[in-house]
């Protein structure tokens, strides 16, 4: 056993900002791990990769990835990323953000970017609460769950994120838990190569806060929940893909072909202006 070697994925991480701020047992580190593993598997051109994140624990992921990165205001990474992708369609734009950032304050931007099929990729860390601010209820908090703002039990129904993404028009929709590390990496590889708006929900443990309030005090207990309850149902109806204490439906639900917004935009520009102006970047078809 040798101790001096650097981790093989460390070249994808900003060493100056390591170690990351995430708690022991938090799944965000696994999401980062799977993401950089996927980038490594694809041998992606890092100069063309832009990681955009919102506010939240997972939002720090942009700072940790050693590529062009931007950390926006709360709820706005998708709108920011829309500007980036349209202005330079050659860039691979990946949004890594949380359930509250993307679906509460950012919900409007999510559904419209999906509807337009803007070619940005969204990886959502769903930990069922607002972790960074101390564990308040969020749009995916399960019914009756305890959080710091639902001390008597949550009376709101949570979103079914894969159903929302599919209904809004995403071309690729998947859900995995952080226990499904390999399958998550494979789905991220698919997501990075696909045209259009792609979405992966990653069910992730938040043991220090959500878990602690809801009788799962350690990351291991939460991961055991994932292990016990997960059921892979590829291409099943996302509307029925529930998350309960007994069942977490995971898999790839949607994988369709649909021309992206930027493809349609550049085709339209080419039509209007047969000789494309110097700023129309040739859209590789």
């Amino acid at each position, binding site marked *: 056993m040798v101790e001096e070697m650097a981790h093989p994925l460390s070249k994808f991480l*900003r060493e*100056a*900002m390591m170690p990351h701020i995430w708690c022991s047992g938090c799944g965000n580190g696994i999401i980062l791990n799977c993401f950089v593993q996927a980038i490594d598997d694809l041998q992606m051109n*890092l*100069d*063309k990769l*832009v990681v*955009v994140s919102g506010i939240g624990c997972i939002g*720090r992921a*942009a*700072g940790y990835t*050693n*590529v*062009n*990165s*931007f*950390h*926006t*205001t709360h709820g*706005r990474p998708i*709108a*920011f*990323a*829309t*500007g*980036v*992708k*349209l*202005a*330079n369609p*050659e*860039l691979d734009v990946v949004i890594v953000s949380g359930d509250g950032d993307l679906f509460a304050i950012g919900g*409007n*931007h999510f559904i*419209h970017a999906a509807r337009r099929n803007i070619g940005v990729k969204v990886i959502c860390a769903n930990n069922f609460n607002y972790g960074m601010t101390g564990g308040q209820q969020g749009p995916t908090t399960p019914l009756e769950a305890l959080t710091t703002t639902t001390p008597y039990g949550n009376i709101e129904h949570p979103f079914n994120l894969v159903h929302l993404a599919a209904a809004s028009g995403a071309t690729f929709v998947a859900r995995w838990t952080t226990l499904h590390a390999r399958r998550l990496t494979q789905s991220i590889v698919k997501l990075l190569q696909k045209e259009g708006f792609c979405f992966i929900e990653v069910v992730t443990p938040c043991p220090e806060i959500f878990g602690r309030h809801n009788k799962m005090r350690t990351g291991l207990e939460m991961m055991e929940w994932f292990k016990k309850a997960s059921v892979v149902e590829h291409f099943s109806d996302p509307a029925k893909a529930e998350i309960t204490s007994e069942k977490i439906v995971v898999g790839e639900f949607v994988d369709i072909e649909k021309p992206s917004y930027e493809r349609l*935009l550049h085709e*339209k*520009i080419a039509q*209007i*202006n047969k000789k*494309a*102006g*110097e*700023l*129309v970047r040739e859209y590789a078809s």
Partner: protein
Amino acid sequence: MAKKETLLTGAHFMNGDVACAEGAIAAGCRFFAGYPITPATEIAEHLSQRMPEIGGIYIQMEDEIGSIAAVIGASYTGLKAMTATSGPGFSLMQENIGLAVMTEAPCVIVDVMRGGPSTGQPTLPGQQDVMQAKWGSHGDYEIIALAPSSVQEMFDLTVEAFNLSETYRVPTILLVDEIVAHMWEKVVILSSEKIKIANRKKPNVPTEKYMPFMPDDNLVPPMACFGEGFSFHATGLTHDEHGYPQTQSSEVQQRLVNRLCDKIRKNADKIIRVEEVMLDDADMVVVAYGIVARAALSAVRKARAEGIKAGLLRLITLWPFPEKHVGKIAKQAKAIVVAEMNCGQLVREVERSAKETPVVFLSKLGEDPHTPIEILDAIRRNS
């Protein structure tokens, strides 16, 4: 589809919004994200037609918050980007204007001011967003704001707004009142070699040595963009010169926020523009901007005809506020008349800069700006 040329050199009869859009194109703007709102909608509609013709990007976003976020994103890829809105949309944009300030993203925001507050009077003018342009977002910061008074200035000042935002890496706001936006006047568009364009300074260090927020001598950091090989991080959190968050350091907060303010304050003399009319021997000075300045000019001329030594200080740059110019005329003037279409906004800055000199404020709300006679009466009463 007659117009496919990028720069429409020549003389035109245009409305203010269209002149602003053409000014953006002339300045090199190739990204527009907006949301329809009276009275700025024509800017979006015109650009929705022109952008594809010239190979630019136009997108109507789902709201104003998305619009300004997309503009900042496009700016970070190297494109000159703009959005246009009015009071209610401008209010929505404030948080992300703060993000543009903090990440030093060059961008132009056109605010065609209408009667407020709230939904107010969408089709009638106002100058009620002046203070909001400076103080609207939270935190300490400085922005640049320009106020055109004519349709020609709608074109020229839009070009200047882009130049300033690129030079100082700061969101630049064009504060237009609805009248100037909707009136039709002659606009002369010069040929491209006669239009001065400024672009953001690019880094000249190797990629691994680049620090995205290390300022140059003028306090502005050279800007790399996504895709150029500089893998930098930018965040709205307080950050050091590498761009990495430093949320626990008082020293970094002081250094960063002071620099963001000083970047504009210390360069104010290079930024500020005013128009001085008959001020050399004036002892009654009118300070005005936007459409009101047109009436004020007429009033000042009438006053001179009556023997009153009146002069006009027309503010072109509203922020940073031309305090030195106001301070100078205050020394020679008996009184300063400030006419604004609001309940008293820029007049406070005039009072602050004029110190002991009496300042008379003329407020007007609603459909019409001040008439020249109203301003003339104020001049007469106080001379």
